[in-house]
């Protein structure tokens, strides 16, 4: 084929359209590709049918009846419903121990004016909570002191104190349980978690007491007296619902 169009003779890039000048890359290349006519194997048809079945089956299983109001057709897709008390299906939100302690830290804002953010108290005036048997030991003694307050001399970590602690019975069972758990498990303290049910039991037993407790009254309670209620094991998630029973 020969071109007579002068515009095509020299467009740019200093070239002509002469055969000799056609660039090597063009001259050496193979023919334009074309499509062959090999028959399609039966195996390909079979594999295609399998794919169709897979796709259709998937749609059949998950379409939710093509209902415009059905947004959750897939069982097991949502996280499994959290185990809660009987009859309270879904009504109570269950908390993990981690969150329980974090909430306790918020309640502790009530305490830190005297006992200090780090739980060390004020030397000679307000007793520390760090390493104190009063908080890490018997939960019953701890709950009594919190509910009704304390007054008079008391020995903490071997040091005598003499002051007044207000009663906190206006806090809810849950808040008291959370702050007790927090104090028993922070700053190096370690003790069992306190549940809402345990505080409820303490309130029932000691709620009738009038006035603040004293050291002598607390010492009447055995030092290993734990509040009744199902315990919570940090390592065993199945016990965590007990926090809010």
């Amino acid at each position: 084929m020969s071109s007579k169009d002068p515009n095509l003779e020299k467009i740019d890039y200093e070239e002509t359209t002469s055969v000799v000048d056609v660039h090597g890359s063009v001259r050496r290349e193979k023919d334009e590709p074309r499509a062959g006519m090999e028959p399609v194997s039966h195996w390909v048809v079979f594999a295609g049918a399998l794919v169709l079945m897979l796709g259709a089956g998937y749609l059949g299983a998950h379409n939710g009846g093509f209902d415009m109001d059905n947004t959750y057709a897939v069982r097991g897709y949502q996280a499994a419903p959290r185990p809660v008390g009987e009859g309270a299906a879904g009504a109570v939100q269950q908390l993990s121990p981690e969150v329980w302690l974090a909430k306790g830290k918020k309640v502790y804002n009530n305490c830190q004016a005297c006992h200090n953010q780090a739980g060390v108290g004020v030397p000679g005036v307000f007793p520390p909570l760090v390493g104190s048997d009063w908080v890490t030991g018997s939960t019953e003694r701890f709950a009594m002191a919190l509910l009704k307050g304390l007054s008079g001399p008391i020995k903490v970590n071997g040091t005598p104190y003499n002051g007044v602690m207000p009663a906190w019975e206006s806090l809810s069972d849950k808040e008291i349980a959370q702050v007790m758990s927090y104090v028993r498990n922070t700053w190096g303290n370690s003790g069992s978690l306190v549940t809402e049910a345990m505080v409820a039991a303490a309130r029932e037993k000691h709620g009738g007491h009038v006035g603040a407790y004293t050291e002598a009254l607390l010492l009447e309670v055995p030092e290993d007296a734990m509040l009744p209620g199902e315990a919570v094991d940090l390592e065993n998630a199945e016990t965590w619902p007990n926090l809010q029973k």
Partner: protein
Amino acid sequence: MSSAKSKQPATGGNDEAQERALIDRSTRMPVLFFFTSSAVWLVIAAALGLVSSIKLNVPDFMDWGAFLTYGRVYPAHMNALIYGWGIQAGIGAGLWIMARLCRVPLRNPVTLVVAGHFWNIGVTAGVLGILCGKSTSILWLEFPAFVWPILLISYAMITLWMIVMFRARRVGDVYISQWYLLAASFLFPWLYGTANLLIHVFPGSGVMAAAISSWFASGMIYLWFVPVGLGTTYYLIPKIVGRPVYSYNLAKAGFWALMIFGGWTGMQRFMGGPLPAWMPAMGSAATILILLPMLAVELNHHMTTKGNLGYIQYSPTLRFTVFGAWGFNLFILLSVALSFFSVGRYLQFTHAVTGLEMSALYGFFTMVMFGAFYFIAPRVTGCEWLTGGMIRFHFWFSAYGIITLVAFMIFGGMAQGTGIDRWDAAFEVSVARGWGYLVARSLGWGFILLSNLMFLFHTLLMSVRLGRRSSTEPTLISKLPDDAGAGISTGAAKA
């Protein structure tokens, strides 16, 4: 053009070569324009990708003001990659392949270059708009709302000439690549127009906007990047191997399966979300059915190249294109896996989605486009790529970069997703689990940036005709052995 009057196809070697040279020359201006500007955008996109990735590890990295915060850099990176690099590279390669297969010269290169300028102005305004905080925050449609008409109109101006060329074709048989390229010409305006109209002009509920944007993003992959990429592999692989495509019927089945199912994909991104359950289920089912075109394409490519892949060691085009074809298979398999609720429930909101998108946009499409660049640029400029060493550098850094990126994002997504799934653990746990994998992501983007700086340099040299002037030997990745069999040496020489 006088030659258009002679209807009989050129059969003689020299006549045919001269006809090819004429066609190549007619496409030179627009093809080089789209190639060079897309290569520039690729470097910009890779640099933004690297910055946004490092920010996930070191949040105060490049803490120079609001315009470089992660929430702006990441969408700017994705949009530069899609509209700046991907679409422009696809247009450049598509125009040339279409002209070659229709055997007609491009009549109106100036219009195309003008439209190309408007496209670049639109993308620049869009990316700057995102960095200035004007992002619409809608997936892959983050450009400020005034940009989309500019892009839509300039795209229409460009593909109009694709259609004109197709109508004026001088070959009776329509080749597979032409189906794909022609389909993509119509599909982009349909997808882009529909999504923008429904989101910007006739806005409905916010939930539906999210559903539409996920449909759009998926449609862009299955109905634009995949057709353009496959149109290119269907041209380049048989061309270099020198054998006809194995089966026409298989190719046709694959094409129609993609066209039918491609538009139904996408909503599985919101599986378990506040959409009617059948919508994500439909998206998942359609994605599973994309296995059909994948099987057809893979079988066709496999049978076409069977026993002839020795050239892959020497031919840059074949090596990039075949890598891309494997990237396509990997992408489809991954997206099918993620479409199942049982897998997607762990991975849908994790890094795995980034890995999936990158396997499509880079592992498949970009690598195929590199193959097309290496094939087309010498033909339209009339000089050869400068050195094989630069191509080798480009290939290995790109390959290592994308493999690192995809692999670590998929596994990182698993670690992160199982963390998110634990309702009793803090969200922070899942973030911390993904941290180490993100280091690898930055590394991957670093490799990709490095390789594409080299590629941009090489492409710019070609566009100003500073390549090798020798017209007998192509530039190969590695030297042919002296005792190479006749089959290999002739094959490579045609690359």
